[in-house]
């Protein structure tokens, strides 16, 4: 299977189920390494998918509900990105980065509703220097 087919399988699984397939399920660890080298994925130390942007393979404070899946975003931008990629209405459950107060963001069609301000701490040219922190 080509790297493009592996990539398609990963995103197909994420968009259908919200869950990233394991390296064993994909059956090609080298392809995952190449996709990570191309900054398509972020892998953990065991070579499993940690991030397939905008999806997180592990729970985060950015839970996205669509009518068909529940999935975790890596950050608030990625949580919105899951709604954009799924081309679906969604609601996002998150919390204030400072005080932890629960916050909800709703995507309905082409509009977004909710309170709060998004803060990007890391300048754009440095995002990939530490993508997990970013």
């Amino acid at each position, binding site marked *: 299977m080509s790297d493009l087919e592996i990539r*398609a399988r990963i995103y197909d699984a994420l968009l259908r189920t919200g869950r990233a397939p394991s390296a064993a399920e994909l059956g090609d660890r080298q392809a995952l390494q190449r996709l990570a080298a191309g900054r398509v994925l972020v892998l953990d130390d065991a070579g499993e998918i940690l991030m397939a942007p905008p999806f997180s393979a592990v729970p985060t404070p950015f839970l996205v509900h669509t009518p068909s899946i529940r999935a975790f975003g890596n950050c608030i931008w990625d949580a919105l990105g899951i709604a954009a990629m799924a081309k679906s209405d969604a609601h996002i459950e998150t919390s204030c*980065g400072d005080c932890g107060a629960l916050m909800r963001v709703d*995507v309905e069609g082409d509009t977004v509703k909710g309170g*709060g301000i998004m803060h990007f701490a890391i300048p754009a040219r440095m995002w990939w220097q530490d993508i997990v922190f970013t």
Partner: protein
Amino acid sequence: MLLFRDEEHIDRWCGQWHLPRGATLTLETGWRLAQAWHGPDRRDPEWRRRTVEETEELFASLGLGGDFWRLR
């Protein structure tokens, strides 16, 4: 990228973590950025990462300028 209740909470978070204040976006602008960035279907064999030039154009189209959004 985190969501905060208001500007005061951003300032407090930056102080706690000893980080300079970064850039703030309204939810509306963040949604536009997310649509442009993550909307294209990555299952499509034609999908590829955006070039630096394309990313700069995207940022500019959303009014995201200045040193923070500079890529080179």
